[in-house]
């Protein structure tokens, strides 16, 4: 069976490295990018099944903008999207998916263990596969 591809977008290189290892160990093919622009390019190139996107990178809202851009791209619109950020804790705000500004599948908060992230991705992709299978 073909491996699912996961795109990780984060300006924290240490996080990218460690999380890539865990996800690869869990059976995923992983591609990474360190900012929003590179993330969008990687998404267009690799057509990932899932993308995990940090928020605060070069700009404070960069991850939000990337999520909207991926969702607005017809070829990528089906991608399972996660926001993974500490911005909610920092601002004492709760971010939840919404059609207008945050069209993602789930918002996860840092810190998160690699195993838990792998579980979240696995559950979301299974749900997406089931949805597509039903179509």
């Amino acid at each position: 069976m073909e491996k699912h591809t996961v795109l990780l977008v984060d300006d924290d290189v240490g996080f990218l490295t460690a999380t890539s290892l865990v996800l690869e160990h869990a059976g995923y093919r992983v591609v990474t990018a360190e900012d929003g622009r590179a993330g969008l390019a990687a998404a267009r190139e690799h057509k990932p099944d899932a993308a995990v996107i940090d928020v605060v990178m070069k700009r404070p809202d960069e991850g939000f903008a990337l999520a909207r851009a991926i969702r607005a791209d017809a070829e990528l619109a089906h991608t399972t999207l996660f926001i993974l950020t500490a911005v909610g804790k920092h601002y004492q705000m709760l971010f939840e998916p919404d059609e207008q500004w945050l069209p993602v599948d789930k918002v996860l908060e840092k810190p998160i263990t690699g195993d838990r992230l792998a579980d979240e991705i696995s559950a979301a992709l299974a749900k997406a596969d089931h949805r597509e299978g039903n179509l």
Partner: protein
Amino acid sequence: MTSQVLPPCQAACPVRTDGGRYARLVAEGRYAEAYEVICRTNPFPSVCAHICLRPCESHCRRGELDSSVAIRALKRFVTEASGAKRPQPPDRKPATGSRVAVVGAGPAGLTAARDLRLAGHEVSVFEHLDRPGGMLNVIPRYRLPQAAVDADIDAILAVGIDVTYKCQIGRDVTVDALLEKGFDAAIVATGLSRSRGIAVPGFGGQRFTAAIPWMTDVWLGSKVDVGRRVAVIGGGNVAVDVARTARRLGAEFVALICLESREEMPAEPGELELSEAEGIHVMPRAALKRVLNRDGAIAALELMAVVSVFDEAGRFRPTYDPSRIRTLAADMAILSIGQAPDRSWAEGTAVQTDERGRIVASRDTHLTSHPRVFLAGESLRGPGNAIQAVADGHRAAEIASRFLETGHVSAPAPDDVRPLDAFPPDVMANLRTMHSPAREPEPFAETEPSLDEAEARREGDRCLGCLAGAVIDTDKCASCLTCFRVCPLDAVEIGEVMTANPVRCQACGLCASVCPAGAISLSYWEGAELTEALQSVPGSATEADGSLALVCRYRAEGGIEATNVLTVPCLARLKPVDVLRLFRQGCRSISLYPCAEEDCKYGAAWRNVQVIADYVRNVVQRVWPEAAIDLYLPETVGYPSAAPQEDQDDRRKAERD
């Protein structure tokens, strides 16, 4: 199952406070008893006296007539200005040996803690702030003074509750660890501590913040940052609090930007009016589209027009018109679009969350997926207000206490109540309007104005006494129809037995005073109390000059100059036989002071007093020629100086002519 019918004010209150009863007690000057009624179901009387959203007043039947009784203002008078002491809590039950951890020291958590402690359990509270109160701490002090919060919380903690501050659940301790440490159950009442965010383009510039963290900084004394031009995003009560606070902190321009139209805005209309009077610009039907930053700081907001907020099914589903854009210069944006719970405490515990991250818990039993962890307050119910949190705290404590005692978790019996029906039109037509002395707060006032004693008594007397009226003892009733004839509201109904219709009866008491069989009592007003008071009179009266003034207890003004004064609950309820007995007991001169007509909710009660006086005079002067009974009828406003009965009769006669 038959619903229990309650006065509308009581039925509307989440903790079923008997607002009408304490209003009437205030009217009579019985402040300690009023305080006791207030505290019977509400451990936050001082807090609610300031910030309760007053569902009682929204349902008050006087509101159909002129304006609702200012029940919250009366609560404030009782708790702050009446001089009455806070009643002692009920006695604590014997120790059960069970221990409960309550997480969160807001209204729900502290109410649950208090109930559990009084039920005999040991209770420890864990609070992440350095003080108790939870969200009460971020309500502006001009609306909720710190002294009111302290008064309630001190009394609650005094029942023997231990609190650990600066202890964040999930970070400093987990619920699993608490249960392992020997707690038999945990109630988590951490409320909605996070503001909802919007991932709007331009998010994250300097001075982009949210209501809860900003208000926490302001009101808990941390460093406060306020812009010159502040945009508050939201249309609820918290948004209004934020806007008014920003204005008080010196912001030159404050805008309240909300999706809803003015009519749809969830903020209390009174609060909104005040905020506009304080110079806050309300911008309805506008949505944040983009934040424009300059050098990393907010410079302006781009707003787009909102076409509609709710869909045809009434669901929140806003639609926008992106072609209608306007730009608002601002150097600060504060999001106040709702609050959400911090659920991170459940991570890594046996407490399960659903796929959207919400804690799985029963709204009936408060129980989570963990067999010993309960939720309470906004953590379970979502956004609410203080008195709803108190009600939910009571409920959670009841369930948890039963669990600790029996090992079983079950929901309490449904609270099946129904408000008393609205007035029939003919009763409405006969009711007397009474102006309320309660005043609305002024813009920029430090706190809302409070009632003085005379105002409070008058306001209390505006209560129409729903369900406090006549009860006819059918065993004593001789079916003479006297009550039927005298009732001004046709509340007495003739059937197999005589009954008083509670929807119509206003507890004026005329029927009870004239019933020859003594078959009628009032649910609230007790004739025995008056009889007892009258029987205590002769000693003091005869020691002086044998004179006595009987004054209506509802009378708000002072100024009665008499050696012996006895206040009675409505002079029109006096029975002639009681007055005659006073003469037999030694009185030789009795002066009757009914209320000024504009102060009397029955309007013409003095006419009944006159009937009583005439009857008694005819009898006593045959026995004691020197005896006198004089009626001091009011002038148009307040009380006249004492005027002989004949003069007043002449005046009335002249007025008639």
